[in-house]
Structures are given as C-alpha cells and as structure tokens.
C-alpha cells in the first residue's frame, strides 16, 4: 500500500470505529498506531506511542485548560454567575435568543484573557449552558452556541495560534494580534445575528422570559453581579497590568473564584468536591481525544496526506481568490479530523511560500488561518470544542445534538470567512494604523 492509501484508508476506518461508538480518543489513537505500523513498522509505531502522549500532556501552556475548567465549575457550583444572567435576562430578554446572544458576548469578552479556544469554551460552558437549559432553550442551540463562541478565543488577542504563526512566518506578532480584533468581533456579530434570525423564525428554540421589568428593576439586577465583576476585574486587570501571563490567568481565575465563593459563603466541601471532580472528568476525557488527534496528525504527516491535498491546490493556476478558496477547502477537510496546531505545522511549510509568491499579505493570511483552525474545532467528526461541551453536559445532551446545534454557527463562520477573504480591509485596516 502506498502512503496515501494508508492515510486515506485510516480516515475511513476512523469513521467506522466512531460510528460503532468507540470513544473518540481511542478510535483516533488506535487508527494512528495501526497506520504508522503499516507505514514504518512496529518499532516506530511503538516509538510514536512512547514519544507523543507524555510530551503532549506535560505542556505548560496547556495547563490553562484544566485551570479555566476549574474556574468555570467553581463559578457554576458556587452560583457566582447567576447574577450575571439575571442582568442578561433583564436587559436582553427583548432580543430573540437573548441568553444565547449574551453567551456569545461573554465569550468574546473572555477571549481577551485566554489564548486558547478550548480554554475559552471550557470556562464559559459550565456557566452559561445550564442557564440556557433552565430557560428551556433548545439543547442544540444552548450547547452549540458555546462550542462555537469559544472559538473566538484564538482570534481576539491574546492567541496561541497567532503567536505560533507569527514566529513560524516571521510576521510581527503585535500587528497580527491587532489584526485579529475586528475579525473576532465580526465572528461574534455573525453568531449573534444567526441566533436572532433563527429564533425570530422559530421562537420555540428560545422561549422568551415573559418578565417585563422596570428600569429600576433592571438596574437592581446589577447588584447580584459583584462576584463576577470582581472575578473579571481581577483576571483582566492582572493580565493587562503585567501581573501574570495568559497561561497563568486560568489558575488565578480559579483561585479568585474560590476566594469569592468563600467570601459569599457558597463554598462548601460538597461544591468544592463537585467542581474538582467535574474538572478532572472533563480534563481527562478531552486530553485523551487531543492526544489521539496529535497521534493521527503524525500519521497524516508521515503518510503525506496534507502534502497531497496541498499540492492539489497549489498545482492549479487559479489566481489569488481561487487559491485562497482551495486552501480553505483543504483546511476544512483536515480540520474535520486533526488538532488545530497539528494542522498548522503540517500545512504552513507548503502554503506559506505559495501565498507569499502570489503576493498575499501574510498578516491577512494569518487571520484566515486562525479562522480555518477555529472552524476545525467545531466540525464533525472530531471537534474539540464540541467535546469540551459534551464533557460538561454528560448524558443530558448527545454529541449528535451538539453537532446539530453547531451547524448553524458553522454556516455563520463560513459567511464570516467569505467576508474576510472578500474584504481584506476588515483584517488589515487596524494593523495599518500602527505604521
């Protein structure tokens, strides 16, 4: 068998295993091992299993994932964020799907303190999903919105993906970060618009709370929000004041949440135990999938699948827009199965020289890349952000339902992507002001 046959064949086997309800991480890891065994033999396949899982896990920047998860779970169990949603309800209930729109806004704001989309979804998920389910929102909408909105975490600065791209492509990181702001806000706006349109046409998705509150009541709602305000000021202030890094922000947020819960007297042994337990469940189940995806990425690299797809695009003389659309398709395909950083490392050595050759601005391309990788986090069958939410809702909502809910946001993302490709000014205006 040729490398390509093994590579594409492995993807087929992967789909089959997942349909047979083999857990995602196990299916990914087993297929990767089998494929590398066929390609390079038993010793190297064994070697990949030795080299990747420990190295992937023992990673400093990834420590923000369990820490932001812990923060979210503590906030939820100690009821720190209930006040926030009372405000959202009071002020946004006139909007169709107000709570879902509020979730998008909260995720966009939260993106400014985390560099990782998975961490963003992790922090927000436990806070907002139960509130929407309690308000009888459609399960797919309630879960899908957080999985999708979490992806803004790697567009609005700081962003791990943009950092790695900046060093890889030697593009000024400061400009990249600034370039991500408008596309990040545009993504959030499109998500919000999608919610409003969908709910207007089908109000059953998000029943409006029939409360009509006076302005005084609306203002009074803010009183219950002090725990969140303290938390947000602490995390934002510390990050921008140079006290801690985006990676450390998760641990600081979790620590602050514990302190606030303690001060509010909502911190009991039981809530604390529950928060820790759920954090461990989520962390362990998500990392096993991420490790599996990292293993599969090595198989795709060795089998030459990424090279093959990229060559298909590069060989045809299609002009800049055609090239970018072709590249988008490649990222959509790879993004179905692999982890975002793995995809970036696989494809950049091929695509960078090509886009540079046709004169594509590398800052613009970096933002498009971030968008492709954000989309990868929510496309089936392997969408890490979907699995983050799945790990939180347990048996309440099926993975298929979350994917169904995410589909609409995927459409919104594709429109956003089209706008970013069609109107480079959205990306390039802000950074050009820096010169």
């Amino acid at each position: 068998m040729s490398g390509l046959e093994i590579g594409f064949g492995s993807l087929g086997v992967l789909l089959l295993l997942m349909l047979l309800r083999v857990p995602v991480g196990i299916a990914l890891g087993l297929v990767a091992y089998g494929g590398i065994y066929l390609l390079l033999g038993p010793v190297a396949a064994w070697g990949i299993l030795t080299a990747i899982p420990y190295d992937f896990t023992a990673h400093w920047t990834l420590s923000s994932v369990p820490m932001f998860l812990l923060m979210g779970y503590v906030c939820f169990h100690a009821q720190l964020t209930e006040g926030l949603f009372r405000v959202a309800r009071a002020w946004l209930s006139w909007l169709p799907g107000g709570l879902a729109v509020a979730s998008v806004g909260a995720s966009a704001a939260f993106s400014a303190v985390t560099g990782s989309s998975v961490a963003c979804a992790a922090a927000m998920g436990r806070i907002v999903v139960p509130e929407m389910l309690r308000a009888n929102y459609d399960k797919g909408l309630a879960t899908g919105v957080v999985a999708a909105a979490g992806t803004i975490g790697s567009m609005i600065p700081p962003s791990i993906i943009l950092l790695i791209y900046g060093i890889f492509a030697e593009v000024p990181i400061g400009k990249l970060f600034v370039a991500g702001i408008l596309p990040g806000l545009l993504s959030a706006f499109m998500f919000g618009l999608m919610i409003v349109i969908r709910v207007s046409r089908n109000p059953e998705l998000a029943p409006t709370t029939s409360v009509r509150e006076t302005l005084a009541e609306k203002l009074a709602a803010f009183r219950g929000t002090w725990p969140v305000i303290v938390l947000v000021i602490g995390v934002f202030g510390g990050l921008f004041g140079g006290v801690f890094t985006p990676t450390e922000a998760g641990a600081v947020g979790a620590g602050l949440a514990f302190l606030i819960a303690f001060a509010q007297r909502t911190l009991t042994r039981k809530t604390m135990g529950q928060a820790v337990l759920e954090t461990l469940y989520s962390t362990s189940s998500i990392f096993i999938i991420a490790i599996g995806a990292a293993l599969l990425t090595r198989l795709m690299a060795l089998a030459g699948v990424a090279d093959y797809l990229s060559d298909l695009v590069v060989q045809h003389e299609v002009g800049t827009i055609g090239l970018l659309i072709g590249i988008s398709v490649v990222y959509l395909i790879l993004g179905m199965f692999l982890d975002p950083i793995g995809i970036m490392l696989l494809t950049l050595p091929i695509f960078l020289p090509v886009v540079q050759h046709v004169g594509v601005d590398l800052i613009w391309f970096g933002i498009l890349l971030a968008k492709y990788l954000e989309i990868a986090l929510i496309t089936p069958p392997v969408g890490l952000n979907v699995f983050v939410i799945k790990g939180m809702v347990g048996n309440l909502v099926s993975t298929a339902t979350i994917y169904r809910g995410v589909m609409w946001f995927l459409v919104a993302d594709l429109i956003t992507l089209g706008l970013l490709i069609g109107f480079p000014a959205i990306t390039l205006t802000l950074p050009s002001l820096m010169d």
Partner: protein
Amino acid sequence: AEGRFAAFLPPANPVVGQGAEPFIERVAKDTNGELTYKLFAGGALLGGKNMVEGLQTGVADIGQIVFGYFPAEFPYATLIADMAIYGSNAPAIAAAVSEFALLNCEGCLAEFKKLGLVHMGGTSTSPYVLMSRDKIETLDELKGKKVRTPGALWDRWVRAAGGTPVNISAGEIYEAMSRGQVDAVLNAFGAMKSHSLWDAAKHVTNLQLGTYRSWGIFTVSARHWEGLSPAHRRVLLDNAARGILQAALGYIATDDAARAEIGQHNVSVHEPSDGMRQQLAEFLKTDRPNIIENAKTKLNIAEPEPLMEKFVALVEKWEALYAPLGKDLDKMTELLMQEVFSKIDENTHGL
C-alpha cells in the same frame, strides 16, 4: 525509501533554513538521488522534548536535539552547555564544539552510542545579548529586574548580577515582554525580529553573554546509520560539516538583518558599563567551581577540569583560525574538514 528529517524549530530558524534544508538538497545531489530525506519542520513530527525517543525508535532518521532538555542522558553535552559564555564567534564555536565532541571527548561519543544515536557535530547561535523594556547599562539598572534566560548558566549569572531569573516558556516571551511579566530577555539579536520582541523591548545591551552551543543539528538514528553504506555515511558527514557552519553563519545573518531594521522600531543599543563587564568576567571565575562541582556530583564526570580546559583551548584555536576568513563558508568548511571531519572514519564512526 525516503528518510525522515525531524526539526522542532520552524523553517525560518537558521538551523532549519540554513542547516537542515540545504543539507537535504546537497545530500540528494551528492548521492545522485540515492539518499533523500523529507523535512518535517516546526515539530510536525517530533518536538524538542521527545526527539531522543523519536530517533531511537526510528520515527525519524535524522533530527535536531537540544541536549539541555536531556541532562541525564547527555552529561558531557551538559558540561559544554555550562561553558556557554566562552567565546562569541558562532562558526568558530560550532567548529570547536564539533572537534571537542568528535575527537577529544570519549565520554561524548559514548553517551550517543549508549542512546542509539550518532553524532555529526554541533552548531552555535550568534552571541546572546540583553533585551529589555528599560535601559540597562549598569548593574544598578539590572538590579531587581526579572530576566528570562535560555538556561541554567544564565540564570546563575542573572542572580549574581542582582536580577531575578524567571521561567517563561519560549512561546510566551512576546506576551510576557509586552505586558511586563518579564523586564528583560536574553537572546540572540535576531530574536528582536523573529519574535517581534522590538514591539516591547526598546533597549539592547551589548554585553556578550556567550552563545547557545549544546545541540546536535544532524543527529542520526543508529538504526538508520547502520543500514547506510560507508560511502553514504561519508556524504552525510561531509555535508554535516558544511551544514553546522552554514547554520552558524545563518544566525549572524539573521542578527544583521534585525540590526538593519531597529531604527524603524525605535530600539536603542547600549554599551554596558565597565562595572557590568567586570561583573561578567568575575562571574566566569567564580562560576567555574560551580561547574566543576556540578559535573562531579550531578553529571558523574570524574575529571571535568581537563575537558573544560581542552574546550576553552579549542574555542581559542578556532576563533584564531576563523578570524581572518570573514564569512567565507567554503574556506571555513575546508578547514573544518581538514582538522576534524576528515579524521572521522565512516567505516567505524558510531558503529
């Protein structure tokens, strides 16, 4: 079949762009296409911390190893890492570390052999300098500053100079610098451009703090090496000699490119005060017993002193040899072949 070359750094880095890439091209040409490698850069196959396991098991055939990540595995290379402040001429140090490990240090070759790896020489970055948010010309200005360094030796220097060494991962340097979690970083000048540090670090202190030199940028898996014909091994060795120098010159070129642009980024370069220079010279003297102590107790090297002296002598030898050559890669390679790589027997090396 096509071999696999694993690099954990991105293609823009000199050890990949000027090291691995031209090496692969030349090897293919010199063997008439019989020996070809596919490059997996930027950690697409193996990262810095699992490179040794990956090479041992044949996941990759040739790889780039930072020995500092594996002090228990590479005690002799770690000793060299501790001697990073001697000398500043990148190609000369690349030649010196290679001659030292390949011809003058049985322990070095033994540690590779034990791990199932074959050494083909090391390289060196350009000199490390201090890049900071505020001007640092004197020891007083360095006092209390939080400094991110690339290794234990420099941490000791920061401590001795009155600063605080802080641990920030390589990927977070930019963020930490721009928001002020660190006040200064130690790196080669080129990092101003490649890591966009000049957005935040507006001051550079021209204190030459040595170079990064304890890595193998063409380390071969013994599984691969054993299957090669002696003629092919010869081709790899010859091209490694050129490659380590080309990478070292690449670092200098990267520095030059960054220096040419600092004006546009309002970066000012400062000369360190005499006090600072004296402190560095003093540190080299007082740190020597630490290195020896560490070598004996942690690294289990019974007699480090003769090795250390040999290494310093080799640095001086190559700095003298290369000083008149400017940046002439061909002449440098010729000398390195003559003095070192021609003395390696492709029929026995690493076997």
